[in-house]
């Protein structure tokens, strides 16, 4: 058993893959707690796709990926707002139009950029090819995003729960919303490295949703989500190593399977779990009566 766990670690690229994924998984999972509660999952999907042209342009001009991503996250959110507010098109349609168009723009830019290999990795992720500079970038961005999320967690929760009260006590819901969107863009860049643009959204939604089914306390969600997500990600990498499958996809698949298990068996919210708990209580009551 021990050998199974240790063998992949003898390869440097595996160690880098595991560190990067665990880090990205933790940051994404923390952010996902707010996204699922505000109902911003679609927004997470949109922003994580829409940053692609920004990342490609940053690659072309040699700027930091995060900068390009932030700019295009902003462009995407602005465009969504404009389309929604100034036409009869509803928000979900506006989100769909904007993010798929920007994503397509990113693909077009990739197709005309020489040295395509690096950029293709952004789409599907390239866990096993994480270089030291990649790792450092993920580390720096991840730590910054994580620190802001944790320091500002109470304000963000207030914003998610009751923005009117936030306004009434002199805070700015607009600024808090903007902060969360900025962090979403930053986190997308962190996760790009690992699972790629297409699957980032899974890391940004599944952990929060899983934790939400397990607890009634937001403070506990903030612990459960990153722990579950990190464990799933590491398991996913091991599975991909031994099954010889795509690593990013395996990470997401593991998260999905764990979500399904929780969805079915959570004692609090699970489809089967709640029924089992009820049957157990009934049996106990019968025994007590007898």
């Amino acid at each position, binding site marked *: 058993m021990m050998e199974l766990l240790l063998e992949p670690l003898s390869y440097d690229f595996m160690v880098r893959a595991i560190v990067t994924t665990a880090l990205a998984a933790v940051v994404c999972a923390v952010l996902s707690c707010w996204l699922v509660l505000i109902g911003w999952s679609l927004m997470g999907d949109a922003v994580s796709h829409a940053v692609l042209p920004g990342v490609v342009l940053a690659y072309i001009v040699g700027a930091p990926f995060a900068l390009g991503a932030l700019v295009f996250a902003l462009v995407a959110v602005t465009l969504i707002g404009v389309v929604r507010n100034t036409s009869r098109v509803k928000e979900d349609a506006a989100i769909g139009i904007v993010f798929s168009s920007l994503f397509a723009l990113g693909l077009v830019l990739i197709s005309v950029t020489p040295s395509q290999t690096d950029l293709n990795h952004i789409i599907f992720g390239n866990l096993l090819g994480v270089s030291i500079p990649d790792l450092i970038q993920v580390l720096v961005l991840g730590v910054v995003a994580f620190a802001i999320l944790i320091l500002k967690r109470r304000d963000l929760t207030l914003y998610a729960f009751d923005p009117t009260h936030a*306004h009434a*006590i*002199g805070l700015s819901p607009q600024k808090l919303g903007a902060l969360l969107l900025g962090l979403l863009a930053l986190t997308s860049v962190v996760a790009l490295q690992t699972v790629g643009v297409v699957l980032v959204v899974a890391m940004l939604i599944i952990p929060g949703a899983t934790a939400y089914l397990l607890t009634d*306390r*937001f403070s506990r969600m903030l612990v459960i989500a990153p722990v579950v997500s990190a464990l799933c990600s590491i398991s996913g990498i091991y599975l991909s190593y031994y099954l010889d499958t795509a690593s990013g996809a395996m990470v997401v698949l593991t998260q999905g399977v764990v979500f399904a298990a929780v969805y079915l068996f959570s004692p609090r919210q699970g489809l089967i779990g709640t029924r089992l708990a009820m049957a157990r209580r009934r049996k106990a009551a019968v025994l007590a009566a007898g």
Partner: protein
Amino acid sequence: MSAPAILVENVTVHYGEVLALDSASLTVEPARICGLVGMNGSGKSTLFKVIMGMVKPDAGTVLIGGQPPSRARKQGGIGYVPQSEDVDWQFPLSVKDVVMMGRYGHQGFTRRASRADRAAVDEALDRVELGDYAGRQIGQLSGGQKKRAFVARGIAQGATTMLLDEPFAGVDKRSEATITRLLRELASDGCTILVSTHDLHALPQLCDEAVLLMHRVLMHGPPELVLQPENLAMAFGLDVLNREETGS
């Protein structure tokens, strides 16, 4: 004489083409409970938003305790109890967590609770008789308890002006009486309370004064007077008057 708790003067608000408030004026003196009565779409929520500074009026002045709303908000003077349907009752927060949010304006960058904050929260919970429910998830309360939890948030905040949006919607008669008693106590301690409500029967027990709103303030006076059928007819249209007459 001290400044009125709420002063709204000739406030006009448009949403695009739609006129929501038309030169509305309203003065509420400190420690009074004022009921706001009007149809859906009469501008009640807009008036609340103007008082909280969420909507900037096209014209007119709003002062809270003699100050512009932005300053009153920064000082934590304005408490808000939302309408039930505006709250996500599944949100994973305990009653205590929600009441603690009343303290955020008094706290530092990370909103870390001090001993004084915790004491204020416990005291507010006891005040609304929810001390035993502090650890419950917010949705696991009855309709009336939910309202009281949000009132406790305003108390913990130290709000001197409280705005309640439909506090009696989905609340049974007994809880209604409890909430009424609680609000009367708060008013006697000096808190000014503005309540928007559909529940006309509760008004006389609760309010010192009532306001009939139909984009403008049609009438402002003692609840008994405002609730007279011919006056309600102005705000609700004649149909309601007819039904009221045949009903009585």
